[in-house]
């Protein structure tokens, strides 16, 4: 079937099977920032924003993403660059497999809650697992990024 998806404010045409998941459709189309981690929405590395809300794309049918605004890290390069510098400054990046999805979630959090505290950050990002960092450096980086942005 043919569908149209609005990705990073560009309308694109896709030929898909009804059962195709958004993650596979987007990776096939070259959106490599989305990654597969767990297959059942429990790790967070496949996150996209749907109308600025984080959604795991591994279990979202591509056709259900029609008529929504999809955002990937390719669409928020400036914000990702900024957040990346805070991560670098705190030593918060290790393997980085979860980092683009984290950038999306932090961006969404910023849109929702201008003065998020550490507990808000933890709760908002709890679905984004990280096996490398122990989380503490990430929280420092995100707090500073949000603080300087507001």
């Amino acid at each position: 079937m043919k569908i149209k998806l609005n990705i990073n404010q560009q309308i694109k045409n896709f030929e898909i099977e009804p059962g195709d998941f958004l993650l596979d459709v987007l990776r096939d189309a070259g959106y490599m920032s989305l990654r597969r981690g767990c297959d059942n929405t429990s790790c967070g590395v496949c996150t996209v924003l749907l109308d600025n809300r984080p959604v795991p794309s591994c279990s979202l049918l591509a056709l259900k993403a029609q008529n929504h605004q999809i955002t990937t890290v390719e669409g928020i390069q400036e914000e990702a660059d900024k957040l990346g510098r805070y991560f670098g400054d705190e030593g918060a990046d290790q393997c980085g497999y979860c980092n683009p999805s984290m950038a999306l979630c932090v961006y969404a959090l910023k849109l929702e809650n201008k003065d998020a505290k550490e507990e808000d950050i933890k709760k908002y990002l709890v679905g984004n697992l990280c096996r490398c960092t122990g989380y503490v450096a990430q929280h420092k980086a995100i707090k500073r990024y949000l603080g300087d942005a507001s």
Partner: protein
Amino acid sequence: MKVINHKVPSVDGLGIMKGRKAYTDDFAERDSLIVKVLRSPHAFAKILSINAEEAKKLEGIEMVLTHKDFKRIPFTRAGQGYPEPSPHDKFVLDEYVRYVGDEVLAVVGQSDAVCEKALNLIDVEYEVLEPILDFQQAMDNDIIIHPEDDIHEMFNIGFKPKQNIAASYHMHIGDVEKTLNECDYSIEETFYTQAQAHVMLEPHTVNARMDFQERLVIYSATQTPFHVRRIISQALEIPMSKLRVIKPRVGGGFGGKQAIHGEMLVAYVTYKTGKPAKMIYTRKEVFESSYSRHPMKLTMRLGADKDGLLKAIDCHVLSDTGAYGEHALTVYMVAGSKVLPLYNKVDSVRFHGHVVYTNHTPAGAFRGYGAIQGNFALESAIDILCHKMDMDPIEFRQKNMIKENETSPIFKIMGEGTEGTAMMMETCKLEECVSRGKDLIHWDDIYPAKDKGDKIRSVGMAIAMQGSGIPLIDMGSATIKLNDDGFYNLMVGATEIGQGSDTVLTQIAAEVLMTDVDHVIIYSSDTDLTPFDVGAYASSTTFVSGNAVYKAAHALKTTMLQEAARIFDVKVEEVSFDGKTFTAKAKSLSLKDFSNEITYSESQKQLQETSSYVGPKSPPPFMAGFIEIEIDKETGEIDICDYVSVVDCGTTINPMLAKGQVDGAIVQGLGMAMFEDVKYSKNGRMISSDLLNYKIPTRLDINKLTTEFVDSYEESGPFGAKSVGEIGIDTPPAALANAIENALGVRMTELPITPEKIIKKLKEKNNEK
């Protein structure tokens, strides 16, 4: 120093945050054939027949591979140097399946969907065999897990497959029974450690294609690209010169990617068909069909005299390697070699036991392997002994632990799979680690515990050591070249897997060449283009590969000075270089002009140097870990208030990345201490095979980590550095168990320490009264 011991951001952090193509699957060919494995539903079975005719007829199915397609060449997937200290007990595909999830056959097709369809059309007839699922029943059982006669060890590792023994080992110094008999105090306790899953977020991923020179080019998410090339060549009989293994960015490894996973099947498919192929493990396959940590039973006996001197350590270990013997001996030996030397003043010590096969998912390398199991047993036993003697556990450790300029005879006797290497502790700041940690956790205010009504707050601690590479075995190399315009390329075989090695090695080169990290462009882990390195394991990269970079950069600097002397027409001793400009007497020449001149103008040549390093010793990093907890007396639930780590890893090349290594390892260790548990059903099927049933620490589990480094400078390390990748994982289990005893007076001897187990122990204790 301008670059070393400075906060330098990761050289690749920004690009990765911005979602650039970086990981293995990002480089797969668009039209890759998909390789899917049919996995065993039985814990132990013999394949009697396979009917794949219907599957082969499906449009889009390229081939179905069974054990009949492969020549029987036993190998080990462990991903170690050659000859491996692991038994060659695995075939690409075999007529036996030895655990639920083992490979039965592979289908190769044009899409995931057609492969799934094909898998459903294949009939396999099995002779289902009775499995061994309890590792304490494995040795000398009537059931033999590896009955085949064509498997073998590469050298003596105590391999006795007919007894289900993958490896065995015995060492002793002095007469431990006699010493124990003479001790004023002695204790004995048995500890159990569980299987833990790595849960790196990037699943095992591999893809392959033939290039225009008709060579097989493999992209693999591996920690050991050079070993992968060698092992594929041996097992598939493909000439090594026809193989190129490229390791792109790896999304976490923790030892799980030291081993071979889908590489064999994908390499075979592409080599046979000429078509690109790929394989990505599902998360279920990562759990069920890769590796987990070796479960162990450790029986620890300690003896001390009335003055508080530890006199004897006797440690018996039974280790469960699962269906295949990857790392059977090495992990087991590290439970002694990187644990027992902590207390080097004993009169006698013994370490002995076996590693046995079972019909569970194989065990393999996992950060801190052996050390975390051994540390849990020894550091718990030390506290048990202190309680019995009514001695302060910190004072006891301070009296008995290894100190700077001391040694232990164990270093010479025990290595990793072979004999070890004698060494003095030229740096050992354990005393500073212990006293600083004691202050940071406010030990004296809390120890042993503070009753707060419903909850009780307590502290516990443990000390640990690790290694820095495998001495006289692990080799790392680096090539560095000067380009026109005055910047450098650094080519290393060392394997960045997210731990920051590309950044740390760049810093080392930049410091030697007196430049900044932006002028050193690193490229790592490509068997065609980078010099050899064993890969990322055994805490070797900063120390072993870092020393190779240090040597190569110095060699290049020397060559550059000689060339500058020739241009200036002076003696080389008269030339000085500050990283930007060469000067000799009144003459000066910028690096940029110098590099352009030797590239384009006069006596043109490429300046490039390659150096290798093999450690003559493996200087251990040390640490003291302190935990502060609050336990709910009624439910047994534990909140971790703080975890203090004070670490001696020599110079921290990059203090932020070093802290990241320790923080991450502490949290992984806390996961093992508190809840991570690979669980099986009664018939051997893994229950905890997804992230809903296998919990790893989330950001809500972690309140505070306090990580510090003591001043330390290891002469043999690059700019004084030792390793830091594994040491952090060792202390949490023992520190937690010790804190629980300090709070509640019960001794937890089985990991993970869950609230249910605590309550059970409390009830047992109350019933005894």
